[in-house]
């Protein structure tokens, strides 16, 4: 249904006829009671209610979302939950309370991601990522969601939830359901979810990394800066995950990052990109590429600007040192010798560095100018 932008406030102004639902047996008497106690009260009153018996209210909300399909009601309940979590994000933990162990708290939200208008989808996405982030961390890798004693078919396991959510997010990035807030919502959600190794692996497997790349471009408006920041945040989080790094190596992400960091004035964008570059410096051929793109000079000029964040300065310093080391390493004579002998000459940084040539001039004499001979041979035989 095409509406003008719905807001939470508007939705919450509605008056839902809960009594009729009870008469049609869609909700229980207790549900009705709790709803009447909660609905339309002040935030402080609700805080008290939730402190006393939070999980019970959660159960009410979840069961309504599961059993009732009327759009307005669904929107209303989603708005209630959204409001509840905005006021105090820690309440997301209530969804994992033991008393709800045999309720599938994920299922309704997962389902709502795919149907309904944008308001419903957006809110479901937000709420779902809150719930996921708030789940109790048991021992590494083993996450409890009532799996232990209950048949797995009854409840959606966390793996399925994450897969489903990642799938939706990737779909959003490819073809947003909403022209302006589709992509930002997805990116925002990803930037919190990608903290987890499970999400990272799902995302990379769903081939989502390449969907982030086009979003890395210099931004000017407030919203686009926020989007850029969150996209770079996602890339930074992914740079801690090996398979993602390998994948990034095949894309043109690095040049784009360098382009952005060169021109950006926003501290947080520069900060996050600097952290990403620091992570990538030691992996694969990123170091050499960075030198090629002229990053050392960019870092120099960035350092000259007056950032207020000392951590940023630290990171820039580390980058500088790392890049210098890289150049030194890449310029070692042995590497050059190896390249010549293999016949694979490449325009790596050392070839252009005058210091390298000066220092190593005597080394060419060894083995009766062997290197020179091989070079001549290459020049004779090579076509390009």
């Amino acid at each position, binding site marked *: 249904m095409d509406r003008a932008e719905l807001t939470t406030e508007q939705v919450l102004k509605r008056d839902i006829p809960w009594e009729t639902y009870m008469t049609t047996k869609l909700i229980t008497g207790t549900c009705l009671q709790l709803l009447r106690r909660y609905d339309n009260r002040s935030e402080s009153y609700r805080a008290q209610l939730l402190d006393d018996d939070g999980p019970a209210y959660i159960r009410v909300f979840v069961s309504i979302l599961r059993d009732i399909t009327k759009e307005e009601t669904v929107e209303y309940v989603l708005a209630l939950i959204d409001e509840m979590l905005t006021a105090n994000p820690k309440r997301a933990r209530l969804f994992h309370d033991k008393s709800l162990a045999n309720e599938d708290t994920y299922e309704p939200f997962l389902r709502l991601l795919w149907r309904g208008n944008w308001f419903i989808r957006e809110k479901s996405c937000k709420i779902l990522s809150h719930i996921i982030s708030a789940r109790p961390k048991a021992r590494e890798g083993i996450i409890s969601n009532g799996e232990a004693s209950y048949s797995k078919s009854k409840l959606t396991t966390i793996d399925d939830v994450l897969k489903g959510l990642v799938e939706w997010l990737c779909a959003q990035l490819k073809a947003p359901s909403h022209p302006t807030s589709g992509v930002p919502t997805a990116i925002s959600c990803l930037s919190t979810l990608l*903290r987890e190794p499970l999400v990272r692996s799902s995302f990379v497997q769903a081939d989502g990394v390449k969907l982030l790349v086009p979003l890395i471009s210099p931004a000017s408006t407030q919203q686009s800066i926020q989007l850029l*920041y969150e996209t770079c*945040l996602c890339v*930074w*989080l992914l740079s*801690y995950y090996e398979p993602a790094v390998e994948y990034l190596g095949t894309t043109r992400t690095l040049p784009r990052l360098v382009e952005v960091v060169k021109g950006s004035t926003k501290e*947080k964008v520069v*900060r*996050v990109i600097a*952290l990403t570059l620091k992570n990538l410096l030691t992996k694969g051929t990123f170091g050499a590429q960075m030198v090629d793109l002229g990053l050392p000079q960019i870092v120099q000029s960035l350092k000259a600007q007056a950032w207020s*964040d000392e*951590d940023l300065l630290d990171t820039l310093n580390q980058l500088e040192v790392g890049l210098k080391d890289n150049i030194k390493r890449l310029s070692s004579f042995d590497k050059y010798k190896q390249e010549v002998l293999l016949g694979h000459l490449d325009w790596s940084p050392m070839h252009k560095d005058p210091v390298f040539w000066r220092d190593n001039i005597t080394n060419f004499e060894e083995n009766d100018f062997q290197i020179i001979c091989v070079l001549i041979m290459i020049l004779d035989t090579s076509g390009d």
Partner: protein
Amino acid sequence: MNDADVSNQIQQMVKFIRQEAEEKANEISVSAEEEFNVEKLQLVEAEKKKIRQEYERKEKQVEIRKKIEYSMQLNASRIKVLQAQDDLVSSMKEAAGKELLHISHDHHVYKKLLKELIVQSLLRLKEPAILLRCRKEDLELVESVLHSAKQEYAAKVNVHPPDILVDNQVHLPPAPSHHHAHGPFCSGGVVLASRDGKIVCENTLDARLDVVFRKKLPEIRKRLFGEVTV
């Protein structure tokens, strides 16, 4: 601007600052967590490596100990084998020695033997004047063959028959018996010497047994134990 606008703007600014702060806090938290993970992994790997090395070391030690143990056992059993072989050979010699005693009882054979022994010794000594010693119980036999022995020697070498003096003062010890089981004994035969006593030829049966034994030891061992190289 009225108060409402001012308050609004302040709210906005507060919200903005808050958001920036939260974002930074999030970044710090993520960095810390990742750093922790890396560090933890490194520590675990380092410890694993240490434990692995420790156990490799222990394994090596056990190997070495096994080798030492094996080599010790091997040596011990080699010695046992050698000892057993030695014992066997010695017992053979003893048995042979015992057999020797019987010879001196058969007077016919023994007489002939004595003569030949005397001749042999004379041949070795090649002296004109000889001193001969024998067992007290053999005196008679020796006297009886002395003359023919001298003649035989003289004929063989083409010299004058030597002068043999039989020592009646000092005799070779008697045959071994139960009474003096560990004392000096002689199973038979003679001892000849040049008159000045400087050259001696021991031709007692025991001495001859020793000689043959020593000479034939390699062959004896070969026949008993085969070509076993221990």
